[in-house]
């Protein structure tokens, strides 16, 4: 589509931009708009992903040689599935993700219900409660490591003050596993709270008023009206949180470094160790692809569940 020369000079769009637009046409320019984002995402995310898949099919251990080793097909995957530590890590990560997410949902919903409403104080409270989430997960790890330190940490000191002998929060395998879940929940509950607060305020108030006219008390209103209407959002949030919890890495790094032993190894952390500490590059690549497929499966499952739940919703 070029500019017809018969158009009076004054009517032609001016300048370099105008000529560029005329040369490429509307569709051409819009496609150009897409390019930077696509290049970066494909180049820095998908290409490495693909190359990771390729690497996983070879035997590459940086400790042995700087270049990629021989082709071994699905060997690394077989190794992954038969590695007991991998299995243990997967099961801990699943437990971790589910527990933390469940805790976040419960506490987040509670906090949302408690702090919903207008008014300066409530808004201030909501903002303050947001803090754990905006801080770098790495820093969160260091803070809690300090607090939960068995001997000198303030938590145990406070407990000692009231006569309780606090456990070794981070040193004992079971307690460490538990503590990590608590820390993650502490960090991310605000996310759930914020999202649910927004959802609560967007609920149509006439439904709730109708309920009270019908004689329903606060608990019944909540259980039969509010909660079902929140379900789609809750499911969505649960999905986000569950998958992100599944991917947890930063906190582990700075609290327990996966210890004691393998007690608090999450999948991401274990793969990180394999790849960047032990330099088993191919093995790490294979395991990380297994993890990726697991994540995708979880996400799809959630989306299907959500569609099922929203199918009965009346569209506004």
């Amino acid at each position, binding site marked *: 589509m070029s500019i017809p020369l018969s158009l*009076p000079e*004054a009517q032609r*769009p001016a300048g370099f931009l105008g000529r560029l637009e005329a040369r490429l046409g509307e569709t051409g320019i819009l496609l150009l708009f897409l390019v930077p984002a696509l290049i970066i995402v494909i180049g820095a995310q998908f290409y490495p992903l693909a190359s990771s898949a390729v690497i996983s099919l070879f035997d590459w251990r940086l400790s042995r040689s700087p270049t990629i080793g021989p082709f071994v097909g699905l060997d690394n995957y077989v190794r992954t599935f038969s590695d007991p530590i991998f299995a243990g890590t997967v099961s801990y990560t699943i437990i971790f993700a589910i527990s933390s997410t469940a805790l976040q949902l419960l506490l987040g919903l509670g906090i949302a219900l408690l702090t919903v409403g207008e008014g300066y104080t409530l808004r201030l409270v909501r903002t303050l409660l947001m803090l754990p989430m905006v801080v770098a997960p790495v820093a969160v790890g260091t803070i809690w490591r300090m607090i939960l330190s068995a001997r000198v940490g303030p938590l145990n000191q406070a407990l000692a003050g009231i006569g309780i002998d606090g456990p070794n929060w981070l040193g004992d395998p079971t307690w460490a596993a538990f503590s990590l879940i608590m820390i993650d929940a502490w960090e991310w509950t605000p996310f759930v709270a914020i999202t649910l607060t927004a959802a609560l305020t967007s609920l149509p108030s006439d439904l709730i008023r109708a309920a009270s006219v019908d004689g329903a008390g606060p608990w019944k209103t909540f259980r039969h009206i509010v909660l079902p209407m929140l379900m789609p959002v809750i499911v969505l949030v649960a999905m986000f949180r569950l998958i992100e919890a599944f991917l947890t890495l930063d906190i582990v790094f700075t609290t327990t470094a996966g210890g004691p032993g393998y007690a608090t190894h999450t999948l991401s952390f274990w793969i990180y160790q394999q790849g960047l500490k032990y330099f088993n590059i191919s093995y790490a690549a294979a395991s990380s692809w297994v993890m990726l497929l697991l994540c995708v499966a979880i996400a799809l499952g959630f989306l299907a569940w959500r569609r099922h739940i929203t199918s009965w919703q009346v569209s506004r």
Partner: protein
Amino acid sequence: MASVTLKAVGKRYGSVEAVRDLDLEIRDGEFMSLLGPSGCGKTTTLNMIAGLELPSAGTIRIGERDVTQLSAMHRDIAMVFQSYALYPHMSVERNMGFALMVRGYAPDEIARRVARAAEMLSLGEYLKRHPRQLSGGQRQRVALGRALVRDPQVFLLDEPLSNLDAVLRVQTRAELSGLFKTLGTTAVYVTHDQSEAMTMSDRIAVFSHGRLQQVGEPLEIYRAPANRFVASFVGSPPMTFLDGVVGEAGELVSGDLRLPGPANLRGARSGEAITIGIRPEDVQLGGGGIPAVAEIVEHLGSLQIVHLTVSGRRIVAQVAESAQLRRGDTIHIRIEPSQLYLFNAKSGDAIHTPGKHAGAHFSHLEISR
């Protein structure tokens, strides 16, 4: 200033045909209304003339140029949108000068043109304000001003008055009409309001379901509609329609109602199924006519709209207030046969119409009981 010619223009979206086989010529300097109900294709047609949408078929010329494939910015047209589409983050002044700025006009030329348009539309004191500080009527004028400043070959207006309240609408209608007569630029005006089209246009193009039904001067459309749809759409209160048959002696039969038919009917069409159309103002009150009972009387001040039952049929009549009819009154009515509109019952095409030169009559001022 230029003519706009559409030949065999069509537009389809997927399987839906919004506009079908449209041939329309808008003359240089003419004010043409595109009239029809929602979804009839008038806005689509306007968008195609503007270049906001490209036709699926056919060609469009503005003046001598074939603009069919050109996008909006190359067509030298200006448009006034239904919602005015003023840029919220710019002042009135910048809104009006925007198109000129984009095309690289010199700043003093822009200022000059903006000032001239502002004066034409009495916007001078609002130039520095932002759209959100203006009333609906003021915004509408800014939208107009924006188009005026462009000095285009064709003005396109998409229901510009529909967002104004009723009083303002009538007032602005007259102002707009005067403005365009002064400017003399070709204008294409989309509306669903038949009174707007009737009062403002040089010619009206009536659309229905994507097809052009008729093009003509307002009185022609009113008095010589091409089909039942056009007759039903133009005129307020709307025409009464009765299903019936042509009798042997050329009279019109609808149920128990018998009306004398127009002269040219005799013989040729006996037995044919027809639709009879009666304009309310053509119902004359007078002795010696058919008896009728006034069921509902609506008082408009200077007129009365009377819903009559005549031989089992409902007919709407418009009479002067001086007739002083009340609910339940029995009166006699007559309809001049040549004033009847007759349509083919199946196709809706007009068989007989009063014709554009039918004289106005004042018989509705006569009463006798």
